């Protein structure tokens, strides 16, 4: 400082003055000390007791000054608690606006203190912890200052931290840009508010603020309302928008509905749908019957299948005659939105997209099939799993059809999973799912079919209807009740659990529980998991019932199933689940502790909650059971998936553990939390694990790597190519052990999942956790014990597509820009044809197949010889599919192949288009385009606003009408020639059933 030269060298004189008798002298000393405290605090600190006694002297009129001085000295001594309490004593002398380290530190301390007090008060729900009013005053002063200065983000952060919702509201309302502020607020509340209850309060407040705004952001409000689980609010908003005169509002409503559907909260969506009021009583009846149509159509076994959309359209047009124009419009829109909310529209569109854009590489499968030893059943089924995963949701089962004889080697449980695999392939085929599976389903007459394929078929139905099982529930229940074969029960339980995911239906619960109480190991395990699926996230007290039974039964399998089931019930409940978690993690039985790990993982999914991480790490290193340790590490992946960058760092040490189980867990944890990100650190962590000395660690690492790299192109990370070659090497290598071979086969399945148009995503675009996906991965990670659970991974697949829709929910022709080199995001190049493909397979084919299969095989042989496309054989029903396949492939390729030597730096994509997550950042909408999106989202379902509504629309996602063959029966028959209905109902026809057993 400037006066340093003339400054005193010691505070001794001033300190001595404090002992003077005259108050004026004391005051003089104090005020001088106060201004020099920054330099002389070490000297003053020895005299603190004197100053303290001055503060405590009631008669001394400058007590506050003394307190301030003591506070500063304590601050320099690092005694922040004491410092704070004296700063409070200093009252108004403590100036919050002063810009000094002392004031900043003490303020931060004060806010921390206040926040922790408020939090404690809120958590214990007792008012006894009275907050010091002086403390409150300081914090309020600070908050007011921030609000006045326009430092809204700080004010919001503090207000949230201190649980001062009143101030939060004030800060939000007074900010310049309310929308931005609210979004900030939402981000903050999601990432920093750990208590679920409190977060709800914050969101509720935000919704309130939103609704007061002159131009509310309905998209956001509805997302919040969904988080708050308030279907009424959403229904009211949707109704308002639907009734609006403006076409755009209806588009917005559809967009909201699609966004909500993306979060996969089945129970909530159903409640919203049921609450949407019908325009008039008589119309409500028709609309009701309209939306019920698919249900009834499916529950009746032989009823020809009809398209929902068609039925709705026709019935409405008839009933709307006696309604006024307004209600008619509303009714029409209502029907559409109901379709969206039930998930049918999006599932249908997704399936069309996956089907039309299917680019799976059959050659990979062929290579796998040939290199896998025939007698090795593990690899055999792994190949079947890989096929199912590769074609998940695409409805393309060419590979199976081509290799029926090979397929027939699957016996017993392998047959179970082979049949179930069809469910994965046809995932989302809601309308025709049952007819597809019909040949394998248990027949009423009880004869014939193997219980394994019947059980598998029921499981497959569940997979098809996962999370949208309204139509199939009843059938599955009946199948469950009428059988007492444990394999069928097993399949039915899994299927029912999947279909009724999270609905908490009491009747179903009873049915499954009855199976559980038969105490059969096979059926019981599935029942345990199924009960968990049914009750996902309900935290119902039925969990304790299950826990009690888990203690009672002798079967490890049942205990394990129940443990996972119980864990599923507390999904997302965070602190609410703590008692149950405590109970499970303290159990004697390692299997229940293992369930406890899952409970921790699911209750705190994606929260990055420190307490949960700490607990998991503790179990990962201290538990005596390897299973528990493995699961504890794996569970970290679930807790951290919202923050994938963190995971590799946290588990990196564990991945070098001496214990192979821990290493395996670390691999899967990275796989789960970094799934689909292609994160470089994750890949670096997994690479060494792929050449681990222990076989199952290699397996885990391969699978995890595939999960991480899904949809990452070789151009963006060269290690993808290396990995692909490594997989091929492992599969082809004769000396490689079965475990890693299986891992490699599954990995190649996952890497090319869903015809390469899906990725694994645990968070929706609005940062909600996708319940189905998380549950799917959780159950998938159980494949360690039970291979058929591998199929659960398909629940986590979400299509990476941009699907633009017009007001009729059809996909119009619409182009937009991907501002990067096409090669960066293109499909992996097809593998090259190996030299000898047909040499081995034919002779064996004839031996073990039935006459029918033989005939088919020979027909195929003939086709092969004539050099035609292999899939063209499959009868007339498939003919259409093939045409389309070829046509679409051409279309897609044309963009990719156009790039000649100098690669263009952008790419024009045509709706609907594949947009992979890494690409989303660089998607741009063209300005002169005819359509503009309602919400500028680069992927998912986006409603498009038509700027030139009078021009005729050109629809994509429709196929040439000529391809509609007789096999598409119901749907084409119902088509009344109205061009607008074309896109949706043009769904791939159900392929013919095939059999692969004698």
């Amino acid at each position, binding site marked *: 400082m400037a006066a340093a030269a003339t400054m005193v060298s010691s505070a001794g004189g001033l300190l001595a003055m404090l002992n003077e008798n005259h108050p*004026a002298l004391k005051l003089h000393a104090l005020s001088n000390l106060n201004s020099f405290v920054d330099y002389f605090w070490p000297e003053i600190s020895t005299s603190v007791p004197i100053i303290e006694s001055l503060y405590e002297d009631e008669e001394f009129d400058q007590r506050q000054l003394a307190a301030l001085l003591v506070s500063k000295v304590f601050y320099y001594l690092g005694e922040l608690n004491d410092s704070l309490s004296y700063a409070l004593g200093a009252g108004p002398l403590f100036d919050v606006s002063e810009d000094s380290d002392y004031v900043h530190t003490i303020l931060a301390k004060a806010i921390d203190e206040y926040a922790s007090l408020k939090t404690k008060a809120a958590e214990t729900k007792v008012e006894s912890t009275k907050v010091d009013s002086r403390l409150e005053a300081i914090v309020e002063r600070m908050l007011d200052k921030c609000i006045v200065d326009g430092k809204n983000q700080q004010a919001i952060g503090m207000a949230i931290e201190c649980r001062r919702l009143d101030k939060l509201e004030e800060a939000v309302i007074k900010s310049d840009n309310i929308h931005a502020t609210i979004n900030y607020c939402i981000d903050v509340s999601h990432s920093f508010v750990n208590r679920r209850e409190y977060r709800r309060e914050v969101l509720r407040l935000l919704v309130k603020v939103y609704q007061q705004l002159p131009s509310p952001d309905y998209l956001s409000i509805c997302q919040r309302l969904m988080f708050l689980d308030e279907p009424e609010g959403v229904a009211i908003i949707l109704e308002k928008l639907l009734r609006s005169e403006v076409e755009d509002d209806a588009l917005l409503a559809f967009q909201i509905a699609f966004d909500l559907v993306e979060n996969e909260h089945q129970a909530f969506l159903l409640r919203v749908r049921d609450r949407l009021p019908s325009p008039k009583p008589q119309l409500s009846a028709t609309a009701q019957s309209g939306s019920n149509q698919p249900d009834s159509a499916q529950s009746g076994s032989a009823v020809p299948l009809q398209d929902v959309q068609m039925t709705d359209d026709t019935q409405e047009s008839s009933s709307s005659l006696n309604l006024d124009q307004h209600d008619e419009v509303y009714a029409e829109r209502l029907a559409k939105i109901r379709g969206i909310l039930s998930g049918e529209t999006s599932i249908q569109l997704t399936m069309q997209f996956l089907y039309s854009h299917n680019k799976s590489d059959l050659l990979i499968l062929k290579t796998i099939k040939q290199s896998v030893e025939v007698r090795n059943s593990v690899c055999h089924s792994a190949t079947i799993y890989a096929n199912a995963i590769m074609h998940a949701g695409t409805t393309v089962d060419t590979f199976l059809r081509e290799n029926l004889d090979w397929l027939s080697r699957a016996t017993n449980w392998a047959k179970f999973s082979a049949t179930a695999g069809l469910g994965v392939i046809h995932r989302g085929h809601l309308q025709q799912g049952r007819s597809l599976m019909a040949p394998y389903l248990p027949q009423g007459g009880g004869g014939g079919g193997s219980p394994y394929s019947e059980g598998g078929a029921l499981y497959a139905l569940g997979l098809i209807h996962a999370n949208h099982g309204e139509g199939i529930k009843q059938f599955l229940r009946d199948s469950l009740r009428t059988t007492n074969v444990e394999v069928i029960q097993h399949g039915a339980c899994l299927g029912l659990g999947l279909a009724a995911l999270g609905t908490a239906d009491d009747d179903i619960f009873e049915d499954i529980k009855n199976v559980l109480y038969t105490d059969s190991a096979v059926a019981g395990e599935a029942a345990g998991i199924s009960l968990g699926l049914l009750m996902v996230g309900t935290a119902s007290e039925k969990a304790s019932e299950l826990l009690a039974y888990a203690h009672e039964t002798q079967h490890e399998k049942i205990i394990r199933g129940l443990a996972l089931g119980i864990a599923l019930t507390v999904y997302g409940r965070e602190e609410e689940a703590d008692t149950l978690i405590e109970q499970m993690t303290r159990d004697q039985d390692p299997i229940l502790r293992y369930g406890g790990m899952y409970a921790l993982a699911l209750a705190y999914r994606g929260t990055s909650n420190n307490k949960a991480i700490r607990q998991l790490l503790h179990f990962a290193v201290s538990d005596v059971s390897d299973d528990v340790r493995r699961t504890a590490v794996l569970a970290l992946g679930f807790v951290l998936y919202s923050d994938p960058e963190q995971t590799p760092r946290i588990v990196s040490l564990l991945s070098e553990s001496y214990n192979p189980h821990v290493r395996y867990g670390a691999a899967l944890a990275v796989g789960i939390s970094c799934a689909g990100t292609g994160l470089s650190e994750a890949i670096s962590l997994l690479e060494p694990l792929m050449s681990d000395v222990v076989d199952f660690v290699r397996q885990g690492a391969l699978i995890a790597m595939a999960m991480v790299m899904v949809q990452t192109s070789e151009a963006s990370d060269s290690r993808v190519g290396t990995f692909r070659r490594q997989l091929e090497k492992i599969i082809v290598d004769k000396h490689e052990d079965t475990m890693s071979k299986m891992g490699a086969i599954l990995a190649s399945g996952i890497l090319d999942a869903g015809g390469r148009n899906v990725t694994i995503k645990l968070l929706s675009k609005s940062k909600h956790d996708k319940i189905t996906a998380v549950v799917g991965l959780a159950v998938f990670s159980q494949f360690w014990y039970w291979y058929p659970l591998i199929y659960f991974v398909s629940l986590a697949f979400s299509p990476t597509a941009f699907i633009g829709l017009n007001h009729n929910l059809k996909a119009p022709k619409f182009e937009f820009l991907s501002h990067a080199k096409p090669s960066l995001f293109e499909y992996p190049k097809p593998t090259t044809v190996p030299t000898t493909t047909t040499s081995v397979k034919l002779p064996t084919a004839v031996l073990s197949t039935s006459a029918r299969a033989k005939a088919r095989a020979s027909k195929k042989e003939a086709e092969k010889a004539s050099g035609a496309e292999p899939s063209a054989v499959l009868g007339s029903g498939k003919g259409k599919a093939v045409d389309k396949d070829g046509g679409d492939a051409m279309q897609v390729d044309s963009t990719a192949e156009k790039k000649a030597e100098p690669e263009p730096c952008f790419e024009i994509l045509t709706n609907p288009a594949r947009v992979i997550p890494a690409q989303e950042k660089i998607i741009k909408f063209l300005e002169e385009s005819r359509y503009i999106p309602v919400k500028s989202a680069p992927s998912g379902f986006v409603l498009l606003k038509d700027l030139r509504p009078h021009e005729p629309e050109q629809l994509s996602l429709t196929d040439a009408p000529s391809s509609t063959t007789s096999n598409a029966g119901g749907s084409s028959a119902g088509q009344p020639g109205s061009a607008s209905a074309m896109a949706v109902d043009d769904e791939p026809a159900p392929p013919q059933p095939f059999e692969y057993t004698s």
Partner: protein
Amino acid sequence: MDSKITEVSQMFDRFQASFMRKDYDTCDRLLSQLKVLLTEFKSLPPLFQETPNNIRELTLARHIYEYAVILSVKIEDQDAFERDFFQLKPYYTDARSRLPPSAEEYPILGLNLLRLLVQNRIAEFHTELELLPPNALENPCIKHAVELEQSFMEGAYNCVLSARQTVPHETYVYFMDLLAKTVRDEIAGCSEKTYDSLSIKDARQMLLFSSDQELSEYIKEERTEWEIKNGFVFFQRSKESTPCKEIPSLQLINQTLSYARELERIV
């Protein structure tokens, strides 16, 4: 500002007059008022603002505090001495460059050294000593204190006591009297370490008491843990030395081993 200086000077004159008259009560009262008045001068420590009269003010203030120190000796108030000395000190140290040296500086510094010696605060004594310039050690007042300290440390207590006769300043007498008691405490402390017991006669001589009566009073007041029995003074009870703490080696070894095991398990 000038009026203030005049006011202070006038009051200081009155203070000096009373001081001459040895009317110490009036002095004390006046001094308190003076100090309050001094707080209003911005040129004084710790602010040292450059005011037109700063030299005059500083000199005056220094003078007042010098008197305050001497007054505290006269009224035999050690606390006041310490207080006033510390307030005076900045005038000697920090204001040295801007003021002509004061005649009273070394006697007062010497007094302070003596005080520290009396209060047996040897560490502070040396700190103060180090702060003095080397030539200051030649000053008789300082030299006196330094020599006393040396004798004190050597245990030449008779030299200490005889030094009373050679005080360089009349004010020193007060502290020299007090020093005798400090010396006695030292001796008592040494003897209880050295002997288990001493005859009363020896103890009396050793502790420089003139009568047994004084000795027993001293024991009663200051050394309650001593015991007089059969014409002897026993020191044992104060010797109950606590055994030095044992190192919990076994426990430490066990802990370290368990840490090692834990580490093994984690990685």
